[in-house]
């Protein structure tokens, strides 16, 4: 991270519905659309899990996979 980036505005972050990490949508490595909403993921693994049962994961309050 360069010093300049500290002065930049914080990007709007999206929550990864699987692991609940906060993800910068512009840099997300994976995304998926479900019922008209785009979800962003920290990594392809989360996308994979999400797409298996999107409805359940959106509803879930807890991360699908605990560390």
């Amino acid at each position, binding site marked *: 991270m360069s010093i300049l980036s500290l002065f930049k505005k914080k990007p709007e972050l999206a929550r*990864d519905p*699987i*692991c609940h*990490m906060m993800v910068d949508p512009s840099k997300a*490595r*994976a995304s998926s659309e479900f019922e008209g909403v785009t979800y962003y993921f*920290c*990594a*392809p*693994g*989360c*996308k*994979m*899990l999400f797409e298996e049962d999107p409805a359940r994961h959106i509803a879930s309050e807890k*991360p*699908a*996979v*605990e*560390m």
Partner: protein
Amino acid sequence: MAFDLALSLGALGLAAAVLWFFLGKRTPLPVAAQSAELPARELSEPPIDAFDPAAGADTEQARLSVSGMTCASCVFAIDRTLRAVPGVSDANVNLAAEQASVSFDPRQVTPAEMISAIQGVGYDARIAGGLQESQEADEHARRRDLRLLMLKFGVGAPLAILLFVGSSGDLFRWDPGFLSNHYLQFGLAVPVQFWVGWQFLASAWKSARHRMADMNTLIAAGTLAAFSFSTVATFAQGALPETVSGKVYFDTAAIIVTLILLGRLLEARAKSKTSDAIRKLVGLQPRTARVIRDGQETEVPISEVRVSEQLLVKPSEKVPVDGVILSGATSIDESMVTGESVPADKGPGDRVIGATVNTVGAFTMEATRIGEDGLLGQIAHMVRDAQGSRASIQRLVDVVAGYFVPAVMLVAFATFAAWTLASADPELNRSIAAAVAVLIIACPCALGLATPTSIMVGTGKGAEFGVLIRNAETLETAHRVDTIVFDKTGTLTHGQPSLAEIRPASGFIDDQVLALAASAESLSEHPVARAITFAALEKGLTLSEPSEFEMKPGQGIRATVDRKAVAIGNRALMTNLGVSVDSLLNHFEALAKAGNTPMFVAIDRSPAAVIAVADSLKEDAAQSVSDIKRMGINTVMITGDNRYAAQAIAGQVGIDEVIAEVMPQDKVSRVAELQSEGKVVAMVGDGINDAPALAQANVGIAIGAGTDIAIEAADVTLMGERLSGVVTAIKLSAATMRNIKQNLFFAFVYNTAGIPIAAGVLFPFFGLLLNPGIAALAMAASSLSVLTNALRLRGFKP
């Protein structure tokens, strides 16, 4: 004042000279120049049973490096993906290590397929480099450390010089007056004290927490005392008693830190590159293998070979992996692993070692162990483990410091007490100032140079006598060696067979048999053939070219010389040719028992003689061994050879203890055993199989004519073949240690002499207290003495 300033200037000049001396261009030592090529010969089957063809060959382990994992779901996804691959029985993914370890059936799946499965779900993976990769990481860290040390020295040295100029007042005409400004000096000293010298502070703190005092404690205590005192003198002059106010020691602290860092830098540069041995080992492996898949021969990268696959090996190719011969007969040059130059005869059922060189025959084999499980991989592992686990011997400097530091602390405390109690009007800050002055003067700046300078000169001296010392600590260790373990073949012996004896059957004359045998062998490149031919030529016999010549891998040769059918070989050859050798069996066995390699010679299908070759001792072997024994050192011989051959050689050379029939990877454990008995062990060897033991031993000594890998694993390399260097190395070590001890004396003596002054012993009489001039004087005198003394080592003669 002018006197000690002149000396201070001398110290600076000396520092520059030291710099040039050690950091100037150094010519590389010509180690690699004459490596390898002198493999050895063997009397019995090389002991390669080292590795059992896997007990559980159905499952293999693979480690994959996986990148791109960010959270637990990645782990989960990859874990599930891997388990879904047919043939994978278990997978274990570690997020932090970025690794996956997988158990799989090598007949169903390759690591490459697992990698593509992982890539399929959006991550990147490759086979974890294991050895090579971690070695590279080590090497990388080592280089980074060295670079950092150089940078720190590069920053510390100019700052220290500026501080020195500044505090030397009017000595330098060009001295810009502002340098003597204490505030500026403080600014210059801070980075030296806390960045350049950080490692001393950190190590001292670590030792202090273990209630130990070592060299770092001394450096930290001395420099911090000097620095803090000077800081107070700069910013709060009023706090100091009049007698010592206005004096700053920023230059003392900075010069000590810088000079000691220079010592560390020199040591780091001299540190051996442990990784080279392993990199070279890995480099020995062939890159591709001919695999027979579905009856088709395909050439594949070595990493794709699976256990129990069938491989084809053609003449003069390297054996790709460890395995067992299925069909075909050949001889394989295993000298790189065993040190034995005579190719080992192999047939179906015999084990072969990856990276050894096939000679004449083609064969098919089944792969039993691949990658790190192979013998080569195991040896690499052992070398690394041994290098990591070897017991380090406490550095002499630390031993000395262990006594000196507490003593100094005690004196400092006593000083404080004395000033408080004995003074007519006790003043707390004056007592503190005196105690601090003791700490300042007690830290000898030549301490950092005492060891490296002797070692540098000693190393150079060793090179002059053909003893190349790669590892500075070796010189501190070698004189303590009380047991020397010798490898036999190629170390005590030439490693090349020569003719030992001919025992003709009745009716045959030895010269006549030798002439025929030598003629028959004259077309062969085999070491045994060369030994026979050479012996005949030496005797002045006339050889004739054979009109017909045939090599029988694993048996011997058959040729027609002067219309006579000559056959030389083992019993199997004779049986095949229908020659009965019963009448010669007695001779054969007697010669074998005496440590020779006997062969039958048949002329026109009748048994003519037993001809025996043997590995001969090096000319200086017996002399060197007896020199070593005279120094009171135990000698041990270790070999993979059979007991008879081993004892025969040991008897000739005068070695008392023989450890024979040792598997290649057991040498290291025998050395470790000796060490666990409290012995300080030196190992002398030349082969790849000696490499782990060389690394394990307190001092590993490689024969310069040996394999690169042995040389890389060892601490000392003897140029050429001669063994007398072992004695030289030990004597040189003793001389160097003596020199280091003298240096330590010089490093401490001037500063120690300064302690009473600092403590204020002279104050009541002369009003003399420690001043920066005295500190500089002590620094200059000790550095000069240390350097001069180290150079005296140049007069060493073995």
